[in-house]
């Protein structure tokens, strides 16, 4: 079978099943059964599929996700989150879209601690969406910024994905990590600009309040009592990581523990709150993990069948000008990113793209950062961006996938704009490491 037939068959079957409304995880499993049957020699291929799933699910890299979810859910169900956001409302109520800004600023801060986009989205989503929903924010104002900042986690150091990319591509790890700082901050600024534009176009999307004037001492009191302790948990988690007390992968456990302790101190830790928090975190975790179980194997089938490598070789076989070639490579990453998991994508493309980039005269660190941006975008591209499903899990039940997709697009646009900026001004990436 030629690569484009294999690609058509695998992508066609999964798109068809998803369009019918089959649960995403089951659609992956069904497509895997079909693919394993054809490409892995019939029945025994299905056993291999289960073995592969076993391998992808017994991984420490997945551990932070449920713990960040738990952290967010405890914030929500104990009312600690509400306290903090009420305080922010009373302080900044007049600013339209204030919680969207809080999401971007808080999320960017949080990205500097977390290397996990899924974990970051899980925490922000479970923490912010219910609160913003209660306050009358339209869906795209809550979901969009969270999806955007979730992706920042892999651009701004620390980032396990960036370390892996640098290692695979044999480029300087430190340089790639540092190169991500300025573009990461620019991206956060683009998000803030986007929110400003969105609130100008539709002021009702994020309602403003009349704030009664408050003496400065009352404001200070409010900050000290309702904002500092909650922020403190996050700050302590960052400090614990930077000081080497625990690794980024272990940070989530201490974050969750910190919120538990805080809730106990504030006397709002009820059995009911704990139970609801665990159930909430469990539901999203189960949904996301079963999709990981299916999609990891789907990625492997795309590779094993030769479908994805065929696409890569075909797309890079044309003799084009450097800039066109860059766009071709970026396009391939975007297409693969719609269906594949990030690590598989790196393993597949790095051996082909980096030598090609070198022959075209691109700076490897700069090219590595462009590639990281493509990977970041692929977390949120429909139909299969994993963050979209995490978002679906933490959003109120009436949220539709269509709303989540539409919320994601403007923020994907910001990332694309950043890529253009990096092409025009490579110094944005190369100035700090240089």
């Amino acid at each position: 079978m030629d690569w484009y037939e294999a690609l058509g068959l695998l992508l066609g079957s999964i798109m068809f099943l998803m369009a019918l409304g089959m649960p995403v995880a089951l659609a992956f499993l069904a497509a895997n059964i079909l693919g394993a049957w054809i490409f892995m020699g019939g029945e025994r291929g299905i056993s291999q599929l289960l073995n592969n799933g076993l391998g992808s699910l017994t991984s420490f890299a997945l551990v932070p996700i449920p713990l960040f979810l738990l952290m967010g859910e405890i914030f929500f169900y104990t009312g600690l989150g509400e306290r903090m956001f009420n305080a922010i409302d009373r302080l900044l109520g007049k600013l339209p879209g204030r919680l969207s800004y809080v999401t971007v600023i808080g999320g960017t801060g949080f990205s500097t601690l977390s290397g996990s986009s899924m974990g970051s989205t899980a925490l922000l989503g479970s923490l912010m969406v219910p609160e913003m929903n209660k306050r009358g924010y339209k869906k795209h104002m809550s979901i969009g910024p969270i999806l955007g900042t979730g992706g920042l986690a892999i651009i701004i150091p620390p980032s396990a994905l960036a370390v892996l990319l640098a290692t695979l591509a044999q480029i300087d790890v430190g340089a790639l990590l540092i190169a991500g700082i300025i573009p990461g901050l620019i991206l956060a600024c683009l998000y803030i600009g986007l929110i400003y534009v969105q609130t100008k176009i539709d002021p009702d999307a994020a309602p403003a309040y009349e704030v009664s004037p408050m003496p400065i001492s009352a404001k200070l009191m409010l900050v000290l009592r309702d904002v500092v302790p909650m922020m403190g948990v996050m700050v302590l988690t960052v400090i614990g990581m930077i000081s080497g007390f625990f690794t980024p992968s272990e940070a989530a456990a201490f974050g969750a523990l910190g919120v538990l302790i805080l809730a106990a101190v504030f006397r709002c830790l009820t059995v009911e709150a704990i139970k609801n928090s665990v159930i909430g975190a469990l539901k999203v975790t189960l949904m996301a993990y079963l999709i990981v179980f299916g999609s990891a194997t789907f990625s492997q089938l795309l590779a094993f069948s030769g479908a994805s490598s065929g696409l890569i070789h075909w797309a890079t076989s044309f003799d084009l000008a450097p800039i066109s070639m860059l766009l071709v490579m970026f396009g391939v990453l975007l297409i693969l990113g719609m269906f594949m998991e990030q690590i598989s994508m790196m393993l597949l493309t790095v051996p082909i793209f980096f030598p090609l980039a070198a022959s075209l005269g691109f700076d490897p660190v700069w090219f590595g950062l462009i590639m990281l941006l493509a990977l970041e975008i692929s977390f949120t591209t429909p139909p299969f961006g994993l963050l979209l499903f995490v978002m679906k899990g933490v959003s109120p039940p009436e949220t539709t996938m269509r709303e989540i997709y539409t919320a994601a697009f403007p923020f994907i646009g910001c990332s694309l704009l950043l890529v253009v900026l990096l092409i025009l001004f490579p110094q944005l990436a190369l100035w700090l490491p240089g």
Partner: protein
Amino acid sequence: EDTISAVHAFPETLIYTKSFLKFVDEVNEAGQGVVRIDVRGGPEAIGMFQQADAVRDGIVDMVYTASSFYGGTVPEKDALVASNITAVEARANGGIALIDQIHQEKMGVKYLGWFDSGVCYNLWTKDAPKLDAEGNLDISGLKLRGNAVYNAFFKDYLGAQVIDLSTTDVFAGLERGVVDATGWTQIGLIDLKWNEFLNYRIEPCFFSTDLGVIVNLEKWDSLSDESKKILQDVAIAHEKSSVEEMRAKRDEDFAALEAGGMQVITLEGAAATNYLAAAREKTWDRMKGLMAEAPQGDGNYDTLISHFYDADADK
């Protein structure tokens, strides 16, 4: 023409994978019109730890992997891990033939060749390692990153605090001081950039890499005699040439590391002997225990050791 599908355990950019891909090229060159290896990819095609089952079940015909990844099925692989000789000697003295026979019996795969041998492991540390009055390595206070292959040695002999970290987490772990020492092969440290944090290499080196090519037995039996001969001949030639290439790469890496400030601390006399003996014997003990549990028993134990360990070489 016979076609053989193949996958490799490590990413394509890693030195060991490049060595395997060179073997593939050599086979495809020598086997024109007779036999051809079709590489389907690395861990992105079939997970690193699932490849052994895949070749056993015939999903793929050939796999290049570390035998430690299927050590539950073939515990005899520890003879290679604790070896102090290379594939050239083990091929000549019948050691590899015995390993092949065991692979066929216990796993239903043909052991075609032990590649990239002659590379051993060092302990690498951030701070200057301490030695006690007798010159033994004093590991107290060291935060050592562990791994299934050398945990028995690190914990039981050195009494170290072993911290399990995945390879991708080690960089961040070293950066922040979660760990300050790790075992690793002589080559590859630069590729992982761990040399940014590690400053000392402790000699002597212990253990050996255990990377090999295994082929599904049914597939092997179905090949023409001509194909089999080409594959086996090229594999034996590659066993030899890869030893030389890895040694050249090691010398190159060591020179680059030392130019970058890496210091070498060497254990002397009885301290070195005890250190190596412990690495070896803890591994042999594990092998004997697991062999005894299998229906085939541990009858091959002494033969294996005599084929893969040369006491004179340690003197």
